[in-house]
């Protein structure tokens, strides 16, 4: 797999709606995600983590510099899991996955297998609004992975869930990653989540934000949240964050 994500010299600023003051979020940010690598971006609130992910997803444009996904002539297929599941509540669960498959030019019949992968096969015909928060997020994960994405973007995917549900979903995500490694970018507030899931953790800080530190997670998958090596790394990241 040769797909990569590259951000080079990226600049991004917002203008205040009232005082017209310019807030520089990034001023020459460089970041790369190598083939088959899952990189987690951690940092305090307001450092531009979500802006970074939105630029990679094509939801926002950089003011300068280059954001490249895949590097090929045609844009790579993305799978995105947002903080909120962002499901179409008026469509049954299966149809929510089918529409993503159809948009990717893939067989809609793969929806059932994708739902089975996240343990929701029996809920395929129900409406998302009757599901719990964790189940809804599982549907979002199924939708993201169903399209066989070259790049998976995860925007604080489990931060809105309770601790136990979040833990289950992190392990589910890890399981999906073990089966098929992909290029991934995870934005999270949680250093514990970052070290459990990522191959590399990037600490973003300052304004404009820059990469101030990187940590390689040299623990083979599948990982356990109780792994002492992960816990040590977690402690180091928390200390650097503070």
């Amino acid at each position, binding site marked *: 797999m040769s797909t990569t994500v590259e951000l080079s010299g990226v600049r991004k600023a917002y203008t205040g709606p009232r005082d017209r003051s310019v807030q520089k979020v990034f001023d020459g940010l460089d970041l790369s995600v190598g083939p088959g690598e899952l990189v987690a971006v951690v940092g305090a609130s307001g450092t531009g983590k979500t802006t970074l992910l939105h630029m990679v*997803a*094509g*939801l926002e444009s950089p003011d300068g510099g280059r954001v490249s996904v895949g590097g090929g002539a045609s844009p790579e297929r*993305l799978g*995105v899991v*947002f903080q*909120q599941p*962002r499901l*179409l*509540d*008026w*469509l049954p669960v299966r*149809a929510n996955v089918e*529409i*993503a498959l*159809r*948009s*990717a030019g893939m067989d809609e019949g793969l929806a059932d297998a994708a739902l089975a992968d996240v343990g929701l096969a029996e809920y395929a015909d*129900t*409406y998302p*609004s*009757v599901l719990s928060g964790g189940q809804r997020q599982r549907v979002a994960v199924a*939708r993201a992975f169903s*399209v066989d994405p070259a790049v998976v*973007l995860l925007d604080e995917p489990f931060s809105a869930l309770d601790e136990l549900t979040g833990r289950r979903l992190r392990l589910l995500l890890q399981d999906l990653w073990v089966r098929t490694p992909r290029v991934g970018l995870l934005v999270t507030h949680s250093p514990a989540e970052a070290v459990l899931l990522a191959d590399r953790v990037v600490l973003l800080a300052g304004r404009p934000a820059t990469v101030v530190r990187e940590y390689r997670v040299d623990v083979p998958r599948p990982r356990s949240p109780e792994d002492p090596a992960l816990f040590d790394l977690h402690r180091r990241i928390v200390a650097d964050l503070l």
Partner: protein
Amino acid sequence: MSLRTGPGPVRPREPDDAPPPAPAGLRAALRRRQGPLAAAAFLLLLVSGWHLMSLALDSLLVPGADDIAAEIARLVADPGFYADLGVTFQRVALGFALAFAAALAVGIAMGRSPLARRFFEPAVLIGLTVPGLVWALLCVIWFGVDLINPVMAVALSSAPALTLSIHQGTRTTDPQLLEMAHVYRFSAADRLRYLWLPSLAPALFGGARLGLSLAWKVIVLVEIFGMSSGVGSSINREFAAQNVAGVLAWTALFALVMAALEYGVLQGLENRAARWRKVAAV
């Protein structure tokens, strides 16, 4: 005898006890029919009041309910009535479909783009303030007796209200869903069918009701002024013959058909569109 609903001692019924409550099934059935019963009571009061007024005035200009009923009976037995009703329906359907398509495109554009909103806003405001009578007269002048005359009159009169309603509905559309549709590259048709239309459903039904009510008024005017068929033309014929009972009979039947459309079609479609909410509420 006592109705026992659960375990516990049976209380003997005292002679001065209130009458036993109606069985739950009957009460529920009565509650279900409260709405239709209230509407029926209003109609009964209207017809009775009208009839008493006609008796009191004793004027040819205010025919009694029995005369109007006789006219209604004559009309529904006449195949020409159904032909005229069908022609009017066809004109309204075509005009409303045109208005709906235009309003959907313009309303969504206004909701998505501030430039489009500023561009179309004057047109919508002007359209809302022009009386239906003016549209009817202008279309008769511009398009003569062609089918395009009533179709354009209906479209021009109903599109502004529909557009405004859709534009306001776009504000309730979740921008996060639009982002999701963007990253998964939904086709334009899928965005319209699976995202915009369901999001806009409440606004669409509200706008459709308002737009249709304007359309019915305008179509009758257009048919009175410039057509030789349809409900308006028939009302005009009764008016020329000074048959007030005939005018009222046509009006009553037209209102009845509109009510059937509202309750039978629009509400059915609305319930279908909101089916997922009911499932979620169970």
